[in-house]
């Protein structure tokens, strides 16, 4: 038997949404803004990311890892958005800049150039490459934020570098 008069939504849940939005919203928004570089897009992305987070809140890790978890969801969402926008127009490979630089390692220290290259990279390696080359995380941090093994991170970074080398070689 079930209560026929069960309330579908209550004030406690409403308060919970408000509290969690206040707690995680600033980090999500700052992260989305950094990736998307557009406040209107970041605002939309923040809502989408928060709704994903809210729906999976029971999977949230302990307080030490919450920011990394939020970062992962926001990063994946925004990179997919960027990829979707790229698909709708010409893929903009920064080949010329890589060739002019002549040195791949120093070229990838340019965050803007690295970001453009990552945006055009295959889905599988994109998040790893972004966190490492654009956000400046070391392999351990990347593994922690994305919930991957360090070995997987290394493999994906190698794949990304191989792609960049091919572009630099023309």
């Amino acid at each position, binding site marked *: 038997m079930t209560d*026929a008069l069960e309330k*579908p*939504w209550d004030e406690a*849940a409403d308060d919970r949404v408000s509290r969690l939005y206040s707690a995680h919203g600033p*980090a999500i928004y700052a992260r989305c803004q950094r990736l998307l570089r557009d406040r209107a897009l970041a605002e939309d992305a*923040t809502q989408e990311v928060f709704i994903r987070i809210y729906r999976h809140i029971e999977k949230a890790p302990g307080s030490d890892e919450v*920011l990394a978890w939020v970062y992962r969801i926001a990063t994946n969402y925004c990179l997919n958005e960027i990829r979707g926008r790229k698909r709708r127009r010409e893929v903009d490979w920064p080949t010329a800049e890589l060739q002019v630089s002549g040195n791949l390692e120093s070229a990838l220290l340019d965050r803007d150039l690295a970001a453009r290259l990552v945006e055009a990279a295959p889905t599988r390696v994109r998040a790893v490459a972004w966190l490492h080359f654009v956000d400046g995380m070391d392999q351990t941090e990347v593994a922690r*934020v994305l919930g991957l093994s360090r070995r997987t991170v290394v493999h994906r*970074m190698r794949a990304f570098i191989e792609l960049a080398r091919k572009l630099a070689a023309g």
Partner: protein
Amino acid sequence: MSPKTPHPSSFEIDKLALQEPASPLPGSHLGACPRCQEDLAQTRAEADHFTQAVRPRTLPDVRRRLTRRRFRLWQLSVIAAPALAAASVMLAMRVHWAHQEGAAPAVGIKGPAALRLFVRRGTRVFDASDGRDLRPGDAIRLVVPPAGEPYLLVASVDAQAKASIYWPFGGAQSGRIDPKARFELPGSITLDPASPERIFIFYSRKPLLAEDVLTLLRSLGARGGEAIRTTERVAVPAEQQTTLLLEKRAP
């Protein structure tokens, strides 16, 4: 290969900006590095912008979206239940028709999936469509699914061989209904202690005489509680029939 940079990562800077306990930062570097200070200031500015401008503007929409989703799930369960019940009735009808065509119609239509029974007990109202966990004194209401027939008769028999017509209450024959719409019996029925009790719903093209039905049901009741529990069809000239067994237990 990794970027050989003295800068802390964006993650470290964001942690610091968002005032979480941050990993140790190279203090002298952060104090002296314009790029890191700019990143730190930018994250703080964006977080403040969210709190002051974005959050107040977007929170109602976020709430509405999450609320609407929950509400839709709740609505879906309410909507799906009659649909499932109707599907069960269709399935049961096929079984029923198959038995009519066969030689030994030993299995009748299952009642619990076909109709809805709501109980009011004190201030609590709940769905008891399985017919179990009922108590004497409970007030019940029945919602009957459509079966495509224009006449309906609802009757019951209990372990004391007492037969009653529940709808049309006190009537001499079946009442007319919309053959395509659910029908909620008006008023409620207060259960007495006699258990088990079986409710029969008869759908027909022509009205059934109440007295004929009552005679058959009294005969069934006279055979005892076990006969009531196991008999899911009676020999009434109805095109379709369904039934629900009520088991009542004193608290």
